[in-house]
């Protein structure tokens, strides 16, 4: 009976030791990533992005081949995915396609399917104006902005404050142009470097998803190991506590 009890505790000790050793690497990783995720805002994990080609390749992130660019006198506006760039600088995100760009003496107007955006010549946003179902944007007589939408042809020449019907008058419609290579290469690099937030990678590392189903199973098993460690650790602590209590009682009686 005593031998059985002895071998049971030996088993518990060994279990605690080897499970602790086996799962230590994953538990350290879980602890480090967990602490990092708890401080996402302070560490700016949601704003910093991954630039490592190896990690980006691991996620299968590639720059879109298709760039849609429109030229003004001195600048280029380019859409890549949902990102819009003013020359080489990221400007804004918009889900609908960039339909055209018109420049006047006062400002630049860019058209999306459901809005117009008014910019200064240096690319500062002046105002975003909701507009329904835009099809084309162009410049008309006296530097007016002409819009072709589901409502027909309308124009504005007071900074997009008011709109009038625009019929049977000349329009130069904005049309996309091939993006110059000197602009396309840095834009594509900028695009892939701005896609993947550090937070996403740490989250995937924390859950094991970074390594697919295998990683998730490893993290799950480590979770079970942690449970066993906690239970066996408590049992060992309790055993020692009881032993020292019994020893103290025996010593007291002997006195």
């Amino acid at each position, binding site marked *: 009976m005593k031998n059985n009890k002895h071998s049971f505790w030996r088993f518990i000790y060994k279990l605690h030791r080897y499970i602790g050793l086996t799962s230590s690497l994953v538990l350290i990783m879980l602890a480090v990533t967990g602490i990092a995720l708890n401080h996402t805002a302070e560490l700016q994990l949601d704003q910093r992005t991954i630039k490592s080609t190896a990690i980006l390749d691991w996620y299968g992130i590639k720059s879109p081949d298709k760039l849609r660019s429109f030229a003004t006198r001195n600048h280029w506006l380019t859409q890549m995915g949902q990102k819009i760039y003013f020359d080489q600088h990221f400007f804004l995100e918009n889900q609908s396609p960039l339909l055209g760009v018109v420049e006047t003496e006062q400002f630049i107007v860019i058209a999306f399917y459901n809005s117009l955006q008014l910019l200064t010549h240096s690319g*500062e*946003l*002046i*105002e*975003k104006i909701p507009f329904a179902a835009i099809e084309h944007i162009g410049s008309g007589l006296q530097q007016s902005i002409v819009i072709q939408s589901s409502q027909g042809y309308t124009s504005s020449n007071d*900074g997009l*404050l*008011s709109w009038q019907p625009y019929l049977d008058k000349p329009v130069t419609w904005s049309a996309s142009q091939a993006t110059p290579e000197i602009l396309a290469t840095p834009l594509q690099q900028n695009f892939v470097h701005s896609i993947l937030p550090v937070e996403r990678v740490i989250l995937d590392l924390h859950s094991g998803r970074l390594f697919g189903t295998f990683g998730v199973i490893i993290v799950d098993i480590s979770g079970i190991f942690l449970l066993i460690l906690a239970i066996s650790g408590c049992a060992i602590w309790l055993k020692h506590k009881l032993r020292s209590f019994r020893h103290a009682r025996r010593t007291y009686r002997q006195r």
Partner: protein
Amino acid sequence: MSSVQAIEYQSTDDFLLQRFAGQVPQPQLLWINKKNQQIVADILQHKVSFLRIRYWQNKQQSVWILNEIGKVKPITTAVVIIKQKIVLLKVLAFRESRGWEVKHDFFTDQFKQNTLDSHLKLTQAIDGISGATLSVRALTKTARLALFFDSLVANEK
């Protein structure tokens, strides 16, 4: 109603027609200079990128249609101001998946007669709604912003 998304309760044009009884004035522009951009950023607790905002005004009232993000998507709100006091705040479009309770009158009525104190805070406290904290916060910021813009217009005149 847990999956309420991109719901427009009333279009801007309809609201303006209703508010101005069919006689909608031409929109006017308020330009936001650097100093006021900082104040706007303080009210909204984030940077703003726009340089001008449009509003509609007649002799009685001014109407501001503003967008502010609750959690991830903008809430479009109309604020009607008469003599530096809010007389109506109405949610025109709500795009978030939670917090839609802020569209109800029982909540928006709290903004009525509210004005700004010297710290650009609302003079009357707004009671929150549990589960709609971010939407409540967005509407409170919108109300403060509209009152601030209205005060700029009043000072210009």
